[in-house]
């Protein structure tokens, strides 16, 4: 086989691989990309019931209730609107009232049924989407004062 054809074989193989990857990517993108929504997004725009999505905001103070069979319910708020969330299982260690949270799941008869509550490793960490959602609803400053106080020492290192 001439050198040229040898090369063509490999280029062909590489293209085949890339085409497979592209085809797999395109088919998976439709189904597996999860959109992030704030409580206001959900209240203002109707959500189709079986669509998986991520809901983020603050856990409303005093809203966490423990139900039977290891179910926990709470409300997620962006200080303008709230959404009821239900979750079965053990909540992450840093899940607290008044703090940022990101949950993933689907709507079942008006209640957001989460199968995943994203944990964080650091109490000063605020997921960027939650920060954005709060900024959008114009409530960022009120809620972030506490964050700033907590983050005071951490931020100080940068100056």
């Amino acid at each position, binding site marked *: 086989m001439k*050198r040229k054809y040898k090369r063509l074989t490999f280029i062909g193989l590489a293209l085949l691989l890339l085409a497979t990857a592209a085809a797999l990517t395109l088919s998976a993108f439709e189904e597996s990309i999860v959109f992030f929504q704030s409580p206001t997004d959900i209240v203002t725009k109707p959500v189709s019931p079986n669509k998986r999505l991520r809901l983020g905001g603050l856990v409303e103070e005093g809203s966490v209730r423990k139900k039977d069979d*290891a179910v926990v319910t709470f409300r997620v708020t962006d200080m303008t609107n709230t959404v009821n969330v239900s979750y079965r*299982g053990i909540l992450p260690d840093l899940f607290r009232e008044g703090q940022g949270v990101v949950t993933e799941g689907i709507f079942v008869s008006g209640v957001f049924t989460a199968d995943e509550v994203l944990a964080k*490793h*650091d109490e000063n960490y605020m997921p960027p989407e939650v920060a954005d959602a709060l900024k959008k609803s114009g409530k960022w400053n009120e809620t972030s004062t506490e964050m700033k106080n907590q983050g005071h020492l951490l931020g100080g290192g940068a100056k």
Partner: protein
Amino acid sequence: MIAEAGHFALILALFTAIVQASLPMVGAHHRNALWMSFDKPSAIAQMLMITLAFACLTYSHVVSDFSVLNVVQNSHSMKPMLYKVAGVWGNHEGSLVLWVFILAAFGSAVAIFGNNLPPTLRARVLAVQALISVGFYLFMLLTSNPFERVFPAAMDGRDLNPLLQDPGLAFHPPFLYLGYVGFSMAFSFAIAALIEGRVDAAWARWVRPWTLAAWSFLTIGIGLGSWWAYYELGWGGWWFWDPVENASFMPWLAGTALLHSAIVVEKRDTMKTWTIFLAILAFSLSLLGTFLVRSGVLTSVHAFATDPERGVFILLLLVIVIGGSLTLFAMRGPALRSTGIFKPISREGGLLLNNLVLTTGCAVVLLGTLYPLFLDAVGGSKVSVGAPFFNAVFIPLMIPMFVAMAFGPILSWKRSDLIQAALRLKTAFILTGLICAVILASLDHGPFLAIVGLGLAVWLFVATLVELGERVRLFKGPLKETFGRLFRQTRASWGMTLAHSGMAIVIAGMAGVGGWKVESIQVMKPGDTVNVAGYDYKFIGARQGQGPNYTVIEGKFEVTQDGQHVTVLSAEKRNYPVRQMPTTEAAIHSLFSGDLYAVIGDPEGKDGKFVTRLYFNPLVAWMWAGSLIMAFGALVSISDRRYRVGAPSRHKIKNVTVIEASGIGQT
């Protein structure tokens, strides 16, 4: 005083690095021996300076000097000594000190052991290393000074994040960084080779051991991280396709491709441009990983509070390094001449296939990781790309490679015959068929992909052993000769056999836990029994306790199988008072067939009830055992004779060319 000494050492290290980056580089260009000779002393001086800085920071942490901000934020007088030391790199500033410390250590290793390198190459390699160091020293001194003082000194510290007070995570960052930074060696050699305009077998023999070492460390680092997530987060999962995890996985994929293509450069004097590209890619992805983790631009389950200002600096560094090196690559890369030619069906062809699949897989992971960032930047919706995407795209791409992986080592260099190779593997086909039939008969259900995964694992494992058997002509001659051949196998080929069979074990573990994990969530009161995958978990009850710097609720489970005692599991829920932060410690008992895994939540009501999460994770421990075997295989490969004895220098090469050419067939 100690902290100021450390700070001063850091500044001195910066200036030494500037000297190391400039004089040898210019000297090598003008063939000025005096200027070039600055490379070795400055590399060693830089290493001593940063070692001093690292030691000063460690000292401040060990003696709990609460007038140093970094210690105040990340330590506490009550913290156990292991975590006082691990706390040095368990934070942003300290981890950067560790980063450059490792970088300088690698650089001085070249300076000390590189006497047989051509002087211009060594000068350029060390200069490129120093350029990277300069970037990181500036980053530290301008945005993240670890030696900043607080006045007045604090009474006590704010403690290290309790999640990090764990043996797994104490050693995870050093290994990960040894891997990341290890790829800087391949990168520096690649850039130096582009400037020199030549890549040959001698070059590859220098690059491959460093790449193997980096890859081995990175494998252990990723394994430790995943193991930690498995037992410390208490979700029973071990890999979430989270951006922070992907950040370490991408350099691993590129590094795996690199260490295979470097073989081709060494043995066959071809695929040079591609290897240079992979070397640049592996290190660029390491830097990208550092950026993603340190900047907090992506929502990650593993994210810590970050400072955007720092993110911008790393992004700038990233653009300079990647942009600069790729520009150089575009200018000089095409001029590299390859001499070796080969047919598609050959050892080279197999290694190229491996490279193509790994880089395609790497591109997919990169796309999935950065897509949310891209969409956000162009003002689109906020999205997350999670496990379903990666499972649907990445896994199918890898399957053909694992099938081919068994064939690769049996193909001969230059040209080979697929049917001939298949015939040599016929024992492997028969054995795989038999084992798979037994497995299928004993499983009554399971997801298709997991069954395919188990089949692949069996195939790869068996074929790797059969290939070894073929190589030593097992049962084809007197047993004594076979043993003789077994002992004469090169370390490099042992390394390959170990690493490939380790990979098979890892795949088996992933398939097992992915396909047949059993999970059960419920509220239990003392005396309750729950059956999970044939094991009876009896909740004995929970009691309060006290650790060195935390309080603990300890829930005990007695596990029995058909009335036979198996083990007692003790799951903990700890609370660290300094940070008011709870952590979960899963109770795990590893069996050959899988892990018994229990977690308790908060108490429910007053009568001793707890939410419990019980799992049976089949074969999960195989993944970590397999990763260790892979990492060990790489280390065995580094110890190969050819990297130690007669390490090549260019003027010698001409004389040994003939011997080399005849030696090719054996390895």
